[in-house]
């Protein structure tokens, strides 16, 4: 693949994601103030010193945005990675073994998907103790149902091909077939799906934090920052819109890259004439 073939929109997306990653990794060095440090008056407007103004407790919004990138990206990425591992292993196992294993897993998946994700998360989070790892796990398990559905569909297409048949006749085990035969041949639609799920995870985490059920204060997190500053809106203070805009911008960037990946996948499919 040549770099020149990547469309401009995808470049914008990649640049945005890299910027957020940069902020997340080097947060303590590039943030002008501390994550929870009170540096001035409550909801002080933006000026030369504080580019986005101060929040509801007088903390620097820019600094909290930079630290928040850390939490938001870490949790969203962690949840997406776990949900993918879980969803793909289960769906490929179902697609390869068929029979009762497939039926049980698929019916259970249908059941999980028949409850809206947000509602399910609310019900579960009402019982579970609040911690960041439980949050990641809940997000991952709920999201893995979507990965499972796609994974099973693409794996079923590949599992009936001759080379998989050949591997089975050769006496390869299930693990080999899943990871050496099927996975490499389904990588490109799954990659696009990964991006899509990642964008969804960012939005979902922000929504949960906004509702007060995600990341707990005082840790900075973009959704939580909107919640902290939402009361300022009535007085015309736009502090809540800055983190909201950051969430939107990051999600748009991820979607721009996904859009390109999807187009590439579909054109690949047409060109090769298999799949």
């Amino acid at each position, binding site marked *: 693949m040549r770099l020149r073939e990547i469309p401009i*929109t995808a470049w914008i997306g990649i640049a945005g994601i890299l910027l957020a990653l940069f902020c997340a990794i080097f947060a303590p060095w590039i943030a002008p103030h501390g994550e929870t440090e009170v540096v001035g008056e409550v909801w002080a407007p933006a000026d030369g010193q504080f580019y986005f103004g101060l929040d509801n407790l007088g903390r620097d919004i820019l600094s909290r945005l930079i630290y928040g990138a850390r939490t938001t990206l870490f949790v969203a990425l962690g949840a997406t990675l776990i949900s993918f591992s879980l969803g793909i292993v289960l769906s490929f196992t179902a697609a390869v073994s068929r029979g009762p294993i497939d039926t049980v897993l698929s019916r259970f998946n*249908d*059941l999980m998907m*028949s*409850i*809206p*994700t*947000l*509602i*399910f998360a*609310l*019900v*579960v*989070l*009402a*019982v*579970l*103790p609040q911690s960041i790892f439980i949050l990641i796990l809940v997000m991952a398990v709920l999201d893995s149902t979507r990965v499972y559905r796609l994974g099973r569909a693409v794996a079923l297409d590949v599992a009936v091909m001759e080379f998989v048949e050949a591997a089975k006749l050769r006496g390869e085990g299930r693990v080999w077939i899943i990871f050496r035969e099927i996975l490499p041949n389904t990588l490109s639609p799954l990659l696009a799906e990964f991006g899509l799920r990642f*964008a969804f995870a960012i*939005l979902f985490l*922000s*929504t949960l934090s*906004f*509702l*007060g*059920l995600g990341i707990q204060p005082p840790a900075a997190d973009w*959704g939580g920052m*909107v919640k902290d500053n*939402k009361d300022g*809106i*009535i*007085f*015309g203070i*736009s502090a*809540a*819109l800055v983190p*909201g*805009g950051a*969430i*939107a911008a990051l*999600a*748009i960037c*991820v*979607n*721009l890259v996904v*859009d390109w990946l999807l187009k590439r996948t579909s054109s690949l499919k047409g060109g090769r004439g298999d799949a």
Partner: protein
Amino acid sequence: MSPSTDTDGLSGRKLRERFPLAALILERLVLSIILLFAVSLLIFVGLQALPGDFASTYLGQSATPQAIANIRDQLGLNQPLLSRYLSWLGHAMVGDFGTSWASQNSVGEQIGLRLGNSLFLAGFAALISVPLAVGLGMLSVHFRNRLPDKIINIVSLAAISLPEFFIGYLLIMFFAVKFGVATFPATVYAEMSLYDRLQAIALPTATLVLVVLAHMMRMTRAAILSVMSSAYMETAELKGLSAFRSIVRHAAPNALAPIINVVALNLAYLVVGVVVVEVVFVYPGMGQYMVDAVTVRDMPVVQACGLIFAAVYILLNMVADILAIVANPRLRHPR
């Protein structure tokens, strides 16, 4: 409905062949009912399997063992799980969801007040967004790969990336605070006139419309495109049918089912989107009620709301499937 509703055994197969439509619809109905029971089981029994004790949740952290034991007794937590589930389900069927732990009010009564508000909001948003989305989707197909289509594509891609609360606060910032043409918060009460009520929910409705519009439009576009690129549309064009005739006679009947599906799917999404929008606009609906209950871990309320949201969602999906079955010309005219 057809006679196949009350058949079993031997004649079932024959009737299924004669009335494939009714059989499919019946199948879908039964499936939804089973699903609903499974969901209620998951919400009630599944939660008990999770770590975290209801009694200590109820009392908070400062609970003595004796107090916990008393509460377990009082809430009936000492009875076997199955009998608790059955009694909960039995009461839930007639709209009795017990009393809230936090306020000691009847949960069913609260839900009765709030469910109507939520459905009103979601229904009004649907009324606006569905025609708009289908229209824009058709427009986008008409100008396929030309400038209007590209603009719609980029804008809708951006729109699906915006979190609901961000759209909500943007609207509040501009229309309620800067220009002062809309009201915030969106308070409604029983004695309100319809006009006042519509005015109060203008901004929440606009938010919901913006949230589902992009999704629905993109899916409509994809559905119509896949029909337009099928072989019979090419045949229609090659045999010299006018564009209008080929769309009305050949494309529309086949595109109807996928479009209905798209619409219903997004209506189901609307029901969930209501949760966040209600919190943003402080609107007295089900979503607000549920989120408040989750924060204070008020389990009877959480379970009741969870069940109702899931039921509405399952119901809408079922209606979508049934309408899609009915709208499918291949099933409607069996050979």
